[in-house]
């Protein structure tokens, strides 16, 4: 970044992203505005939760970052009230969402303090109260700076297991538990077991394909649209917003080669870095280009086991 004092080529388009606010109503620049907003949102969260100093963090800095987050959330909320689907455009990078589909041990071993708050706050419009959790950092009596706010929605555990997961759970039942938490309406384990079936079997069509056909899985687009169209998940209001029609333009956006990238020369670097730096939260190294393919492989495994048993 700038601190290294490296020379860079002058780019006229640079100013388009940084600094000046781009009105959300502008057509072509709306994407860059949303992109910038999302970038800043993620950076702000990382600043609040990634920092573990030996001394007390600066209250002024915390307050300013907090205000930034609140402002962005307000905007998202307002946009969310107009267009609930697009509000999810500000959804978090694939890593944290896909965390619930990863092998549970990997998730269980994720460091406890930062991820719960991070995951629960990332991007989702509904749990705004959870996003206010950072304010509790300001309380000088608070000796659990990363505890989630009591208003944290039930969906929060969906990102990660419950705060104190029993370590001896085996990976598949944990995965099932997570999926169960996604769907508070389903109570029977059978329904929960059926859930991964249908969710993984979804191919963008309402009908459920044969679950024991791995080839279908491979041919599916590598993103969360697998889950969106299944009947299983449509009951859920929260996850409607989370999973429905996610605007993945940010993640399909290849910073190195995209022709449209010139409009935001600065952002691709940071967005790219963001994806890499957020990988630790999912406790599995993720190359930004292939987070979704890994999900499919794991879904495969889970599928086979479920079908096998």
């Amino acid at each position, binding site marked *: 970044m700038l601190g290294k004092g490296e020379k860079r080529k002058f780019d006229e388009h640079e100013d388009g992203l940084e*600094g000046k606010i781009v009105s959300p109503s502008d057509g072509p620049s709306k994407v860059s505005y949303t992109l*910038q907003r999302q970038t800043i949102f993620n950076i702000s969260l990382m600043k609040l939760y990634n920092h573990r100093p030996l001394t007390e963090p600066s209250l002024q800095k915390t307050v300013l970052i907090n205000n930034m987050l609140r402002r962005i959330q307000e905007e998202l909320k307002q946009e969310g009230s107009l267009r609930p689907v697009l509000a999810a455009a500000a959804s978090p990078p694939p890593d944290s969402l896909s965390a619930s589909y990863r092998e549970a041990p990997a998730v269980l071993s994720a460091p406890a303090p930062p991820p719960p708050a991070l995951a629960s706050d990332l991007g989702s419009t509904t749990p705004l109260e959870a996003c206010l959790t950072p304010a509790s950092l*300001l309380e000088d009596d608070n000796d659990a700076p990363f505890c989630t706010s009591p208003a944290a929605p039930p969906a929060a555990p969906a990102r990660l297991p419950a705060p104190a997961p029993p370590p001896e759970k085996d990976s598949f039942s944990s995965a099932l538990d997570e999926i169960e938490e996604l769907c508070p309406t389903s109570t029977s384990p059978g329904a929960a077991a059926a859930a991964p079936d249908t969710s993984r079997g979804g191919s963008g069509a309402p009908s459920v394909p044969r679950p024991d056909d791995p080839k279908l899985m491979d041919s599916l687009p590598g993103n969360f649209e697998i889950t969106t169209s299944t009947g299983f998940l449509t009951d859920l209001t929260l996850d409607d917003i989370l999973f429905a029609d996610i605007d993945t333009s940010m993640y399909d956006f290849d910073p190195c080669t995209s022709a449209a990238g010139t409009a935001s020369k600065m952002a691709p670097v940071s967005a790219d870095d963001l994806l890499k730096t957020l990988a630790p939260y999912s406790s599995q190294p993720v190359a930004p280009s292939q987070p979704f393919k890994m999900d499919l492989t794991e879904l495969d495994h889970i599928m086979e086991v479920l079908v096998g048993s």
Partner: protein
Amino acid sequence: MRGFWNKVFNLEVVCCPCLLKADIISTVEFNHSGELLATGDKGGRVVIFQQEQENKIQSHSRGEYNVYSTFQSHEPEFDYLKSLEIEEKINKIRWLPQKNAAQFLLSTNDKTIKLWKISERDKRPEGYNLKEEDGRYRDPTTVTTLRVPVFRPMDLMVEASPRRIFANAHTYHINSISINSDYETYLSADDLRINLWHLEITDRSFNIVDIKPANMEELTEVITAAEFHPNSCNTFVYSSSKGTIRLCDMRASALCDRHSKLFEEPEDPSNRSFFSEIISSISDVKFSHSGRYMMTRDYLSVKIWDLNMENRPVETYQVHEYLRSKLCSLYENDCIFDKFECCWNGSDSVVMTGSYNNFFRMFDRNTKRDITLEASRENNKPRTVLKPRKVCASGKRKKDEISVDSLDFNKKILHTAWHPKENIIAVATTNNLYIFQDKVN
């Protein structure tokens, strides 16, 4: 402004070239006569420089500053309740006006303020009757004659001793201390509260401003700096992270939560961005010597306010406007939170503040001219005349200009000080102190 600035000498606070955390300069302050210059560093040390007096006779220089005293002001502490370290870094030093032979200054870290007495000893008594020269007591039976001890000159020894320790009054980090014009009281400000102390009393302080909300989750604004008016002992100002300055009168009520005046400039809608609030946060506020104006420093600019006009500043100077298009990166690498200080010259005609790449800027209020200079080791031998610098924001870079992208954001000048009477300035880079003076001939 009378021409270029002549570098007289280069003082180094640390001799070794590597960047030692303990030796990062964190505050710089001249005393009231300008004869002494105090620096505080991140390791809790205070180093005081004294201007040579002999060279005043010679016309071409005003005397160099040499180390006068060094002492450890604050030590690191540990807050056992929160399991956090309390940094020993000196946040601010303020001198008291000299009343007798000794000098007094206040130094503060995040939590504790100390009053230090710096005194000289250049004579010592010799010829005691009961003691030997090395201090051992003589056998009284050997004393056969009496003599009067006399004072003989000795090598100058400068001693610093802590006279008062003002502790346990701040929950949050102290950012400012300011001595009242009555020279009996002073204020200390942290993020949410301002306390009033009497210099003689350490076990009691009065809270005069408290902006802590009942519910901390509603906190959106903190205090960033505070200062007493130079002449009115009942008036002080404090600035906030939202770009406002409040002037308070202590005669109005015991708790000055309601301001007498609120200084705030409305936001320029054409410059709005995600970072508008952060860059409006005021990092320093300083009254002019006359007391009629005050100066504030926010991330990109310096503003001069007339105390009689609250709705906008009377002058605004852009320090590094070319950074406006880089705010996202500066937010990412935390540079946007850097707290730059600012200072007036003795006659209130020129103001100075620091920037990145070891640049510092001076603005002449009368001629409206400004200059950018660099404090760097490469081309700074004594008597070198500093060359003005220019940053090229965009477009074709001219010769000798520096492009924005090649600025070093790790080299920042946060602390500067101006001699109260003469055109001598002290500029602190990360771990070096530079002293420049105006070219006389």
